C-alpha cells in the first residue's frame, strides 16, 4: 500500500462536502466554523469553533467531518473545538453570503441591520417580526413588498 501524503488544500477540498445541517447549501468553511487544518507527519487536526454555544448542529457537523475523512481513507485525525476567538459572522465568505441569499436567507449585513434586503425580490422595504428565528443564528423578517416572510442571518 503506498503512503498517502496529505496536504492542507486537499483536506480543505474534502471538507467542502461538510455543510451546516440546517442550511445544506453552505459549507463549514463558508460559515467560518472551520478555523484551521493542521498537518503533522500525516496526522490531521481539524479545528472548528461553534457559532452559538448551544448550537445543536455542532454535534452533527463533527460527525460529518468524521465520516467525510474516513470515507476518504483518512483515519489518523483529531477534531478540536476552540472557543476563542469567538465566532463572528465576519468570517463568513462572500461566496457563502451569496449562497445564503440564493437559498432564501438574507445574509448578515454589518453596515445596516435596520435595512435588510428581501432575498426574494431585493426590496429594502422589510420589517423585523422577531429577534429570534427558526434557529439561534437567525431572526425573522417579512417583506412589505412581496409579502414573503424570510430568515435573516443576524450579525454576531
Amino acid at each position: 500500500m503506498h503512503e498517502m501524503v496529505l496536504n492542507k488544500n486537499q483536506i480543505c477540498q474534502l471538507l467542502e462536502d461538510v455543510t451546516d445541517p440546517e442550511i445544506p447549501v453552505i459549507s463549514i468553511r463558508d460559515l467560518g466554523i472551520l478555523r484551521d487544518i493542521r498537518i503533522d507527519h500525516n496526522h490531521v487536526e481539524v479545528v472548528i469553533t461553534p457559532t452559538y454555544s448551544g448550537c445543536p448542529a455542532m454535534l452533527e457537523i463533527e460527525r460529518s467531518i468524521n465520516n467525510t475523512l474516513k470515507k476518504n481513507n483518512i483515519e489518523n485525525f483529531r477534531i478540536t473545538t476552540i472557543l476563542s476567538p469567538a465566532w463572528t459572522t465576519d468570517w463568513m465568505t462572500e461566496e457563502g453570503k451569496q449562497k445564503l441569499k440564493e437559498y432564501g436567507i438574507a445574509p448578515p449585513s454589518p453596515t445596516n441591520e435596520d435595512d435588510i434586503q428581501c432575498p426574494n425580490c431585493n426590496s429594502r422595504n422589510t420589517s423585523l417580526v422577531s429577534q429570534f428565528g427558526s434557529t439561534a443564528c437567525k431572526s425573522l423578517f417579512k417583506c412589505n413588498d412581496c409579502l414573503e416572510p424570510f430568515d435573516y442571518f443576524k450579525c454576531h
Partner: protein
Amino acid sequence: MNNHLFNYTLQQADNCLILGQRLGEWCGHGPILEQDIAMTNIALDLIGQSRMLYQYAAEVQGDGKTEDDLAYLRDAWDFKNVLLVEQPNGDFAKTILRQFLFDSFNCYFYEALKDSNDEKLAAIAAKSHKETLYHLKWSADWVLRLGDGTEESHERIQSALNELWPYSAEIIIASDADHDAKTNGYGVNLEEIQSRRDSKIEEVLEEATLTAPEDTFSHSGGKSGTHTEHLGYILADLQFLQRAYPGNEW
C-alpha cells in the same frame, strides 16, 4: 483542585442550566409562535453556556467526572444557582420580568469576565456575552411593551415585579468564591456590575412606567446550596433519566 475556582464556575453554570430548563418549559406553550421560539432559543443559548462552564468545572475538579455528572448527578444542596432562576414561570409577564432581572446581570457579568486572567473563563465569557446582548434586548423590550401596554399587561408585570424584587439582589451579594475570584483576578468585581445593572433596571422600569418596591429585603442562600422547594421539582424533571437509568445515552 482550586475549590473557589470550581465553585465560582459552578455558580454561573447552575444559573444558566436552571434558567434554561425553566425557559424550556415554555416550549409549545408560548403566547405566540415567535415568542415561543424566542424563549426556546434563549434556553438553548443558556444551556450551551452551562455546558461550556460544566466542562471547565469538571476539568478544574480533575477527578475524571464530566459535565454530565455535574448536571445530572448532584443534589439540590450542591447546586449554587441564585433563587431567582428557579422561581416558577408563572404567566408570561413573570417569565419576562425574571428574565430581565437575570439578563441585566448576566450581560454585564460576561462583559467583565472577558478580562478574566483565567484564559478559559475569558473565552467562555467572550462567546456568551454576544448571546446575552440579544437576550437583554429581548427581555427589556418586553418589559417595556407589557409595562407601557394595556391596563392588564401593566398590572401583571407590576405584580411580577413586586413578587420577584426580593430575589433580585442575591446575585450581586458576594459569596466566598466571588471574593476569591475578584481578589485573584479570575472573576469580576460585583460592585461594578451592580452599578451598571441597577442603572439599566432603573432606566427600563421608568420607561415602562413600573415602580420597584421600596422594601430592600433580599432572599439569599442559593449560592451556598440553600434553595426554595422549587429546585427539587426542577431537578426531578431534569435528572430523572440519569437517575433511573444510570449512564444511559441517546
